[in-house]
């Protein structure tokens, strides 16, 4: 949030993907991708 504020875009909506992705099994990555897509749809619909 401090970085967003420093860039003057504190209201910018964020799509959050939990760290880490490296080392995750493919099914877990797919699950996160679906979650990210849902988040994105929600953000775009705001």
């Amino acid at each position: 949030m401090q970085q967003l504020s420093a860039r003057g875009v504190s209201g910018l909506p964020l799509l959050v993907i939990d760290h880490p992705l490296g080392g995750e099994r493919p099914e877990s990555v797919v699950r996160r991708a679906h979650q990210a897509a849902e988040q994105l749809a929600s953000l775009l619909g705001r």
Partner: protein
Amino acid sequence: MGEAAPRTLEVEDTPEAVLEAFVAREWCDGLPIVPPTEARVQAMLGGRPGDLSLGPVPPLWRAATLEALAVNAVMAGCRPEYFPIVVAAVEAMLDPAFNLYGVQATTHPVAPLCIVHGPRARALGVHGGSGCFGPGFRANATIGRALRLILMNVGGGWPGRHDMATQGSPAKFAYCIAENEDASPWGPWRAGDAVTVYGGEAPHNVNDHASTTAAGVLTTVAHTAATLGSNVGWYFSQSQLLVVLGPEHARTIAGDGLGRADVQRFIYEHARLPLGTLKLGGMWGMQDWPPWMMAIRDDEARPPRVPSPDDVLVVVAGGPGKHSSVIPNTCFSRAVSRPVRWEGPA
């Protein structure tokens, strides 16, 4: 040093109280500091304009004003004579090629190594001889520490928050050496008064007490440089290797007639691992290799770890002994050099 931080702070005039005050505000690295009083900051500036900014410092993009740099240089224990070196190093770190945002924020244990070139810095005590990586040399320790404090206090790279290094590194306290030009059989790596910043890991030791030939020493160097756990080679186009040769190793290599370019070429050709080994771990599957490397199928083939021999940087530093070091870079930052302007505004 948040945006709302007051310009002045009144603290009981004892070293303990000053340290407690700065630690509590997350304004220092945990070690005692020299209080940056107005008089000391002005002395550090030496007439330079305090409000002149070299640019925003990531990841929080606060302005690198000369005053902010001077405050941190005072805190680190710098003499005012060192300040032009600090300024030049910050200028170099802010070059886009250095990718300071990545260097600050990555999980990799990278720190900007400040290599100081030229006779004037050596006269000020920037040390390139025995034990140059430390401890014991005020100029090295305080210039390196000033750069770290600037990255923390101006850039906002606080461990675990915006500096996401998994384990950090002792090199993040202070990381500054001089090139030992007098001991280099090939002359200086960079001519004149200048600094080079290099986003590297802490030094990896190269111990070779046995070799009496260039081939022997350089084989040991190359072996040290190529490891599966290294960042170098995965993000290929930005990968570099810094080789800091001890003077004795350098002499042995030069004694066989090799120049600096030959050393670069040898290490480029030999600091490699078989494709089959690279497939075992590291960052296999995440590499951004060019198409010709991705097309390799022979598991015995040894693809290069850096794009060209020019990406093997060779410096001579240190004192007597049969040790050198290899410093892998973070693989998304390029070394950058800047002249040191001793007089007047930066």
